[in-house]
């Protein structure tokens, strides 16, 4: 079970308290009624499916009930960072450095 840091509660809580809520940073167009079919398709249907870091929304549904954003590595399943709704995308170069200390080497890797 993953531990997820809720940026509102400011603590790590077990995955069971959370629910995934799709890709992050997709804003509903303010003039949605007048956008083109292509723009609507982009907004509603198309999603990234990256191997590596992904921006996604989570909801602390069995906690504070807030939606927030997270950066997660789809390969290792590790959360790089979480942040509040409305905050800009974090600088990943910086976040990656902060969260990826040099992997510890064991006896076998001389």
């Amino acid at each position, binding site marked *: *079970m*993953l*531990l997820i840091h809720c940026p509102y509660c400011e603590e790590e809580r077990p995955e069971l308290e959370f*629910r995934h*809520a799709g890709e992050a940073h997709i*804003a*509903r167009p303010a003039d*949605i*009624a007048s*956008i083109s*079919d292509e723009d*609507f398709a982009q*907004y*509603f249907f198309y999603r990234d499916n990256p191997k590596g870091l992904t921006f996604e*929304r989570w*909801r602390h*549904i069995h906690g504070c*009930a*807030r*939606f927030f954003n997270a950066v997660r590595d789809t390969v*290792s*399943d*590790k959360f790089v960072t979480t942040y509040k*709704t*409305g905050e800009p995308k974090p600088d990943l170069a910086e976040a990656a450095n902060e969260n990826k200390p040099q*992997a*510890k*080497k*064991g*006896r*076998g*890797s*001389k």
Partner: protein
Amino acid sequence: MTTAGTNRIAGKGRLTPANTVRFTFDGKSYTGLEGDTLAAALIANDVHLVGRSFKYHRPRGILSAGPEEPSALVGVRRDAARQTPNIRATVQEIHDGLDAVSQNRWPSLAFDIGAVNDIGSPLFSAGFYYKTFMWPKVAWKHVYEPVIRNAAGLGTAPEEPDPDHYAGRYAHCDVLVIGGGAAGLSAALAAAESGAQVILCDEKPSFGGALWFEEEARLDGMDGYEWAQQTTDRLAVMDNVRVLSRTTAFGYYAQNFVGLVERVTDHLAAPEADMPRERLWQVRAKRVIIAAGAIERHMVFANNDRPGIMLAAAARTYLNHHGVAVGRKVGVYTANDSAYAAAIDLKKAGSDIPAIVDIRDNPDSVVVEEAKALGIRVLTGHAVTGAGGKLRVASMSVEPKNGGSAEVIPVDALLMSAGWTPSVHMFSQSRGKVAWDEESQRFLPGTYAQDCVSVGACNGTDGLAETVAEALDAGERAAKEARAKAKKSGVKIKTEGGGKWAGGMIGAGPGAGAGKVVKAFVDYQNDVTAKDIRLAVQEGMHSIEHVKRFTTNGMATDQGKLSNLHGLAIAAEALDRPIPKVGLTTFRPPYTPTTFGAIVNHARGKLFDPMRCTPMHASEEAAGAVFEDVGQWKRAWYYPRPGEDMHAAVNRECRTVREVAGMFDATTLGKIEVIGPDAAKFLDLLYTNPFMKLGVGKLRYGIMCREDGFIYDDGVVGRIAEDRFHVTTTTGGAPRVMNHMEDYLQTEFPDLKVWLTSTSEQWAVIAVQGPKSREIIAPFVEGIDLSSEAFPHMSMAEGKVCGVPARVFRMSFTGEAGFEINVPADYGRMVWDTLHEHGKPMGMCLYGTETMHVLRAEKGYIIVGQDTDGTVTPHDAGLSWAVGKKKTDFVGIRGLMRPDIVAKGRRQLVGLKVKDGRTVLEEGAQIVADPKQAVPMTMIGWVSSSYWSENCGRPIAMALVEDGFERMGDTLYVPMPDRVIEVEVTNTVFFDEEGGRLHG
């Protein structure tokens, strides 16, 4: 000779001779000692033959003294329901009355018909099943598969439900130490004395690990095993330490989440009834110290599976811990020093050691000299090329390893050691990457992925002093990393002795047979031989993952404990590639077999899923309701009277509601209180309908769409005040509608001043419907004028009902004049009972969900999820009137303009009139325009709702049909397996089309 077995050596071992235990194996009674495993007690009684192998039904004995055991699998039964198959005899502790049986044999263990597979074994080589039984195809299902299934598998599962219960605990700690040998105990002690919260677990009944057999090791001046017990006692009394024996760490998951299973009662003769059989520990540790030790490997040679052939350290465990000599004439075959210690121990205990056969040319260490000094014949540069005997090993054939004449040496047991494989299972499960160490020819922890560290033998650390030093350092370091206030532990442990087991080989020895019909087992449990691995390579399996799947090497419970390295080395040799290039298969949880009981734990029976009952449930039950499951809810389905079946009951309920009145429990509806200055604006955005102008005290039916324009939910919204709404949702939709609303409120419209509160559980809802509904409730209503003029259809008011605060809605899901009374949940039953008592003499009935479905269908009211399927727009459902034409924005506004949504050919909701006037269509049945067309026919729609309508005197149905609105009056067809049913397309209102009854 003692009473506890002919092979028990007086003065040897740590068990108390007076503490005897009676148990049975295959119906025969034996005596063992308290502290024995089943394997130890059987060997003490000179029983080596304990089972038959999986594929060839070869006689099998006891190979090991631990959880890596692949052969000695038995069934253990306490009673009819408590029968556990495939228990490792090397793990099961004996207790008085233990009843164990051998498996996979018929009619008896000594004479097994299935052993014919062994003779026919050239037929059953690797990939046998893939290549055979391909023809004729039909024979697979009816002939081959049933026969194979019958013959396959080892033990038999019990047929009764498991009567035991299993406990579960969550635990958090600074440092989790996996394994309680010298390394684990040292690490735990250092961490604990540094002030860290420590959990220490070991799979055995007592701590010590290799100290169980390693008699020469001394710590702090005392016997190693004794030190382990004293250290355990010291740890157990510390407040910051939890010591768990008989507890296996079986799975290592993300973020240092480790699953442990503690076996609580399997070793007890008469466990107390309230004790759990096992306890699942879900541990979240800041740091994990893996001290899992190493597993001794067998030698790969012909017939290396004969009973009596076992790992050298296992024989030491049986001798030094249990006081049992595994044989009187014990041969030894080794590629490593550790087997010498076994030979020396047995020799000193009185067994004859005819020869130590060492495949190495010049083994050079103290133990070799010691063996020679004891007069043991040491044959270096030699190999055992075969074993004689069938039900028990009788001899070993010894040859110079590079060829020469063979000598047959009689033995009654044969010990082997090919070296030690570091147990990197937990490290690998943590997603750490192992690395090949060329010098010591083993895989060691390479790159770590989590906050853990390996110490001791599982880290490739050789020698007791080195192990203890490494473990103390790791324990102290882990405590410091986990806890800012950790202090210096000050723990020092003095060590003496303890072997450094140099040497070892991987792969097959001479005589393991490339082309010959020879069985040199690599994986005992799956009956995989060296030849099978070579064959797999020959047949084109060039990746170790393919070799594994083709041969099943290392599968099932082995998970790479014994077979991995040998299999890998043989494959690498056949491929002519270095081992690291061939790779290693993945270690997967569980480390050892784990019961479903422990994993499922409390979540079974009534605790599997919550059951939700409304406050009126008991009254409904008393009234004879039959309940149906709606999600987690129990809902009254219908109320049969004596002699009525469901059909009769529903017909009566339907008639009574329309003729008199009926009362219905609508509590399960989702309810959301929407409050705030922008509440109306918010609902205007979330629903297709306009809400800004809805008057206070008025109700409006609302449709909620997703952005794509498809119906997501529906319900009635009441305006209680300018800034306060009472919103209802479908029963099943309650949580997702709340989530949907919160999502938009928090992330898209965060500037709106609105607060949402789920009130589904707070209100009990009682619907009273029918011509007499007003008359029935009126005497109990205070503060609300119920007359049609003051309180018309689609109004709401707050007042009191039966003296308690209530929100009364004048609304209808039946087409009759009716009321939905919301009262605080705790008063629900009182109000229900009061109204029932009053209404019953007036002819009112209780009705359930089935009648509710029929009545609403008579009126053409849709049920979201039944008449819609996530691809239906409000227009498709005939609800265009509910979409605000003047609105400039709402969720779904743009979706409803999509080309495919406005195009022709959409499936639209229509009514169907069955022409014969009596056939009730099947819900889900497909509809075609021309029943004579060729199959497969073009299907133009499907039946979404269908009932017998007592009030209409005929069947009614709704269906989603392509361009349905343009087909009014057309004849369509519903093809069924036995006939074609003719239907006419109608509108969806079957009863009281003008709607006059609503306003009565």
